[in-house]
């Protein structure tokens, strides 16, 4: 047992090193003087000022943030409904299909979802003359993709939920809707919050789906990063990586704190 455990803990350490060493190096090299990313040329913050003066990059980041906020909010509302339906209604017409539609976006290769959503928007454009591809289409695509993740988090939270509280409210005369708003929702709010955060990060990071459904005019942050790194390593992207990792760490701590808020 001891030897088994020691081996496992060694692997755990190696696994963490494997996960974090590349990121640490990228963050370290964001302070590199040299343009060459493989050569250390001394400490400098010039790529930091370059990134924050990079208009196109900032515009892309702003667009991404707006899309992420709106799509995460849509996903949180619909995902909440979906998770609630999954957890509370054992059977209804089409439940099998419903369950599959919740799981599928999580396992589907993104290129497949990308092309299908694009064809939907192209079809809509031919039939109704819109929506124009850009902010709206990207937001709709991201929301659709993220619903699953919110639904799963909400469903898990509802699975270990004390239903006697709801029953008590109903016994005291509360309508189902009032019970949901005053008892259920406050209790599962942390799950919805962490689902929202997850949807927000997924949207902020998505490249493939976005590349398919974005029009010619809109460029999100990942699209911008992708077109830049295709040409090779770029010190400004190292800076961006450092920012992203830092923000992600903060978001995760916040989300962990939210989920651990036991009612």
């Amino acid at each position, binding site marked *: 047992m001891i030897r088994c455990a020691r081996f496992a803990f060694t692997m755990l350490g190696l696994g963490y090193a494997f996960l974090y060493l590349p990121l640490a190096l990228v963050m370290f090299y964001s302070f590199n003087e040299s343009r060459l990313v493989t050569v250390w040329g001394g400490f400098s913050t010039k790529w930091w000022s370059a990134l924050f003066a990079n208009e196109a990059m900032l515009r892309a980041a702003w667009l991404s943030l707006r899309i992420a906020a709106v799509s995460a909010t849509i996903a949180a509302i619909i995902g909440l409904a979906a998770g609630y339906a999954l957890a509370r209604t054992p059977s209804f017409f089409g439940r099998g299909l419903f369950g599959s*539609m919740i799981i599928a976006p999580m396992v589907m290769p993104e290129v497949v979802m990308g092309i299908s959503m694009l064809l939907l928007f192209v079809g809509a454009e031919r039939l109704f003359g819109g929506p124009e591809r850009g902010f709206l289409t990207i937001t709709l695509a991201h929301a659709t993709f993220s619903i699953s993740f919110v639904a799963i988090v909400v469903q898990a939270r509802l699975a270990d939920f004390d239903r006697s509280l709801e029953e008590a409210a109903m016994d005291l005369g509360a309508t189902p809707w009032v019970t949901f708003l005053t008892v259920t929702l406050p209790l599962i709010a942390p799950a919805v919050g962490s689902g929202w955060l997850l949807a927000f990060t997924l949207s902020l990071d998505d490249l493939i789906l976005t590349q398919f459904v974005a029009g010619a005019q809109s460029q999100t942050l990942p699209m911008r990063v992708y077109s830049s790194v295709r040409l090779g390593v770029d010190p400004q992207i190292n800076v961006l990586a450092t920012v992203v990792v830092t923000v992600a760490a903060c978001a995760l701590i916040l989300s962990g704190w939210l989920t651990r808020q036991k009612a």
Partner: protein
Amino acid sequence: MRAVIALPFVWLGVFFLLPFALVMAIALGTNAPDSVPPVALGFSPKSFALLFTDDLYLAAWLTSLRIAATSTVVTLLLGYPMAYAIARAVPRRRPLLLMLVILPFWTSFLIRVYAWMGLLADNGLLEQFLRWSGIAQNPPTIIGTEWAIHLGIVYAYLPFMVLPLYATLEKLDASLLEAAADLGARPFAAFLTITLPLSLPGIVAGCQLVFIPAVGEFVIPDLLGGTETLMIGKVLWDEFFTNGDWPLASAVAICLLVLLVGPISLFQRQQARSLEPRT
């Protein structure tokens, strides 16, 4: 309650299910480069036929499946001991250890793949390290090879493997192992006969979460792989964006769906049903 079900049902129906009918329709059309969009609707199996007869596409399928399979196995071999260690750690420390696995998943996928570009580049940090440490004087370039793609997939999908494994290992009843030990089983025998079989659902779930997206992976082969390694996700992308052949790209998507996602979701439903109490 009906409205609560209807809202997500209709949304997913319109934005998720309906599009696949369109993909099928386009896949049966033919390429028409001069019109916008570049498709002539019809009922032609040409694109599908091409996918299964042209050597290039067959090779892309086989390469994708092979790379995804080996990467999944490596991810499992690395992820299993990690999940095992976290599940065996002091309960107080588990959230932190788990968070360290999840954190990379919250950072950008693109940036994590990018992180390997500088490491694996020609004369990059890994080569410099190998030379400096004297492990290899003339290390081969890794970027642009299948090695780099494998590495990228293992790196990017490791959290997806560890999490489901941890979920099953954490629930494992320790008294079963004690019983085995009392009855004289060696630790390794106990692991093989108790821990491993009981963690099988986690292994299956983790492998699916890695294998399926890895087959259709685009970013990793595009940024870390070379031009000679064709993976099917990249083929779809190139047919769509570079060649503008929408029917062919749609046919690839349908095939990925039917051959990959379909069987696995059926299997999953079977699994779920066998766990549910009979009604």
